[in-house]
């Protein structure tokens, strides 16, 4: 088995140089971001590597909780940035991502699929939160755009005596579906187009492909659960802000 270290990581910078050279030849204005992204990912991942090493070795549960909390805050902030309503994006992100990720994680603990050990909790929470974050961001963005663009449809429904939920039902369903599209596409093509990250990591680390596949199946179902919950909650909370208690569209 190949031993991976800093040397191999540095050597792989050749690939970055190749990408930057191609971008420069084609005059794509991304050179600066590519360099920043390379440095940033290196520093972030090394820092996370040390932090995880420390948490795994300490076996303190509160450190696991702290790590999950930090992931959740960053995920909620990032998703909230996609909010076009300009109020409460972070709150929606925190509640929807938190519910989607933590309920899924809790169920997995309750069903004894995983234990509270840091080596399970942190990587799985990371996967759940990042996928839920993307779902929440897409749903938020879609709702902001669709509600503003479909004022006539909404007000026609309100004028027919519909309440805010009924008046926005079609747009809600479309936005939630948009939030889920990435995980649905992933589940359709998993293993056929690309081997997913967790599975790839396990195989690279020397685990048997069959064991890696079983873990990946659990991860896929887990992601579907978290993403669905997050999209549904994001959609509901995001739409509600466009209406007041008098069933008036204020968007």
């Amino acid at each position: 088995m190949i031993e991976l270290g800093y040397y191999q990581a540095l050597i792989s910078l050749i690939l970055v140089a190749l990408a930057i050279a191609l971008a420069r030849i084609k005059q794509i204005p991304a050179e600066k971001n590519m360099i920043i992204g390379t440095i940033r990912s290196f520093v972030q991942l090394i820092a996370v590597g040390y932090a995880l090493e420390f948490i795994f070795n300490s076996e303190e549960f509160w450190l696991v909780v702290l790590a999950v909390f930090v992931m959740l805050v960053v995920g909620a902030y990032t998703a909230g940035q996609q909010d076009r309503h300009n109020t409460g994006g972070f709150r929606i992100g925190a509640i929807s991502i938190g519910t989607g990720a933590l309920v899924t994680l809790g169920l997995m603990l309750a069903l004894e699929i995983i234990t509270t050990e840091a080596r399970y909790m942190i990587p799985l929470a990371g996967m759940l939160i990042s996928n839920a974050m993307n779902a929440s961001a897409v749903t938020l963005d879609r709702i902001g755009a669709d509600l503003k663009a479909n004022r006539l449809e909404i007000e026609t429904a309100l004028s027919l005596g519909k309440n805010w939920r009924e008046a926005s039902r079609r747009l809600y369903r479309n936005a939630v579906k948009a939030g889920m599209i990435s995980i649905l596409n992933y589940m359709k093509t998993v293993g056929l187009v690309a081997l997913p990250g967790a599975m790839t990591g396990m195989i690279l680390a020397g685990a048997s492909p069959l064991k890696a596949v079983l873990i990946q199946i659990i991860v896929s179902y887990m992601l579907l659960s978290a993403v669905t919950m997050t999209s549904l909650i994001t959609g509901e909370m995001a739409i509600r802000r466009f209406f007041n208690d008098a069933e008036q569209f204020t968007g």
Partner: protein
Amino acid sequence: MSCGNVVILETRDVKRIVKKGDVELTTVDGISYTFRTGRIYNLVGPSGAGKTSFLRLLNRLDEPAGGDILYREKSIMEYKPTELRTKIAMLFQEPFLFQGTVRDNLNICCPDKEIKNMDFHLERVGLKVTMADKDVAGLSVGEKQRVALARALFQEPEVILLDEPTSALDPTSARKIEQLIVKLSRELCLTSIVVTHNPDQAKRLGGETLLLVEGRLVESGETQQVLNEPATDLGRRYIGNDLS
């Protein structure tokens, strides 16, 4: 149907203020008026006079900043908005129909209420009975407006608010809609409040006319009186096309 000419809707010193950034705009400025059953009321005035803003307050699509609106002698604030809007229906300038057939659209307001006589509902707005199962995507704007009207009437409202209902139509279709409004107001004892930028249309519709300028009610009364012999300087300027 006997139409009692009783008070159905009353506005008392109604105001609407809209915030645009740091600026507050008064779009409706203290309008008081009484609307009776079975009558047609035209809201006329230059662009930005507050006609649509006033109309949207009547079924509580927007909230007034002051004053009160009474429906059947009770403040509209005391009704559930969803219930109020089935009694005070609204038709928009551009008709919006939900995906599906004409029948689906009529059913949308009240899914539990079976449409026993689809022919009747279509014929009374001048649509052919064969259109019931037609996809709304293939309808002309005039037909769409009629379906929207049939859909609004299906809820059996007592008041219908029409925001420039003919502005997207050709003159022939517009005339037909005007005739329909007159006929339905009479037959159903329906109070119709119509926003129009066209004084000639208001004359054809008859009833009463309210002239609004800069959010204020500057003149009102029988349509022929208001539009042929305005009593105020602003009224004369409006008729003389001197108000932008």
